[in-house]
């Protein structure tokens, strides 16, 4: 056995050994790295993404077998990441935190045509409206693909809104082709983050997706709760003292006016209240009989 192994290792090309070392060096150098799926990304798009990300991340495409060896041999004890390697993966290295990385990768995804034979990731719809095509064979092609089309005003139009295939269905060649021609791009294509390794922990997308709106509303809710608690127990602090004074003052006014406490400070309110009641009663009365009220109260 040993002999065979020795024999085998002698035949590992230098470039492969180097590649493994390069990967290990990158793993060493960066505080975190991720495994991304690159399948289905047209070469051009991949290049574009690489450029877009170049200031924040390094993408390294290598054979899985070599990546495997690097992960196993790395001093960072990250061999578990091998679980996240499958066909057509690459490594991505960055100084950013895992959440930022996830966000960047999601943002760098672009809408792309769906390929024939692919599975619709959500319902695919067409919308009523004009196309750029003049009448011709395209009309029949659209219709046979299940897209409602007709001629209007000298052009081919999509005649109604329609779900042309539901989530989970396999997209036929004809439909795929027609959708592409209509420039309907139902797929988000980009670097698909499978997992990130940082400091001995592995993070997966379910943990990495951040809902900013939820954080915003949670902060607002917490702030309200704090205020509620503080005011309800009359805890005097810079943020609550004005409200507490205001509350006490209102309560005193309420009590004074509702119980008709004849104190100087609320006389104006009491007089005003009586006056309002008088006006209200007077108008009800004068509606029935004008002569029941003063000249100046007549409506």
């Amino acid at each position, binding site marked *: 056995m040993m002999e065979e192994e020795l024999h085998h290792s002698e035949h590992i090309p230098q470039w492969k050994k180097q590649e493994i070392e390069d990967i290990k060096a990158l793993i060493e150098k960066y505080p975190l790295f991720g495994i991304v799926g690159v399948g289905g990304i047209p070469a051009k798009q991949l290049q574009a993404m690489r450029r877009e990300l170049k200031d924040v991340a390094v993408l390294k495409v290598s054979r899985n077998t070599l990546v495997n060896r690097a992960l196993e041999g790395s001093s960072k004890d990250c061999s578990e990441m091998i679980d996240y390697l499958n066909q057509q993966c690459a490594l991505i290295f960055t100084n950013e935190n895992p959440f930022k990385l996830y966000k960047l990768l999601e943002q760098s995804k672009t809408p792309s045509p769906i390929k024939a034979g692919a599975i619709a990731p959500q319902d695919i719809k067409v919308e009523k409206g004009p196309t750029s095509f003049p009448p011709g064979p395209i009309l029949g092609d659209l219709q046979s693909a299940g897209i409602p089309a007709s001629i209007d005003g000298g052009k081919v139009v999509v005649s109604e809104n329609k779900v042309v295939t539901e989530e989970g269905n396999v997209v036929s060649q004809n439909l795929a082709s027609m959708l592409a021609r209509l420039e309907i791009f139902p797929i988000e294509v980009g670097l698909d983050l499978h997992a990130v390794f940082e400091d001995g922990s592995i993070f997966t997308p379910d943990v990495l997706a951040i809902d900013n709106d939820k954080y915003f509303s949670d902060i607002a809710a917490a702030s309200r709760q704090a205020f509620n608690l503080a005011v309800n127990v009359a805890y005097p602090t810079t943020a609550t003292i004005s409200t507490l004074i205001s509350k006490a003052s209102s309560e005193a006014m309420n009590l004074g*006016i509702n119980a008709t406490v004849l*104190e*100087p*400070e*609320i*006389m*104006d*309110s009491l007089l*005003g*209240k*009586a006056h*309002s*009641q*008088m*006006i*209200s*009663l*007077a108008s*009800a*009365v*004068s509606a*029935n*009989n004008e*002569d*029941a*009220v*003063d000249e100046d*109260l007549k409506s």
Partner: protein
Amino acid sequence: MEYIYAALLLHNAGKDVTEDAVKAVLEAAGTDVDEARAKALIAALEDVDIEEAMSTAAVAAAPAAAPA
């Protein structure tokens, strides 16, 4: 307006708002009573829910009075 206040007063005291009651109150205040008005008032009050008229009255916040 004093006729209306008289009505409010009687209502608040839980008394019936009658012509005689209104007259008594106004006389106690030292005012001459116009019989016709008093009659008209009582007649007009017949279909009026005093309590309701009072509660629809809006009350404004008075100027914050300086501490006594």
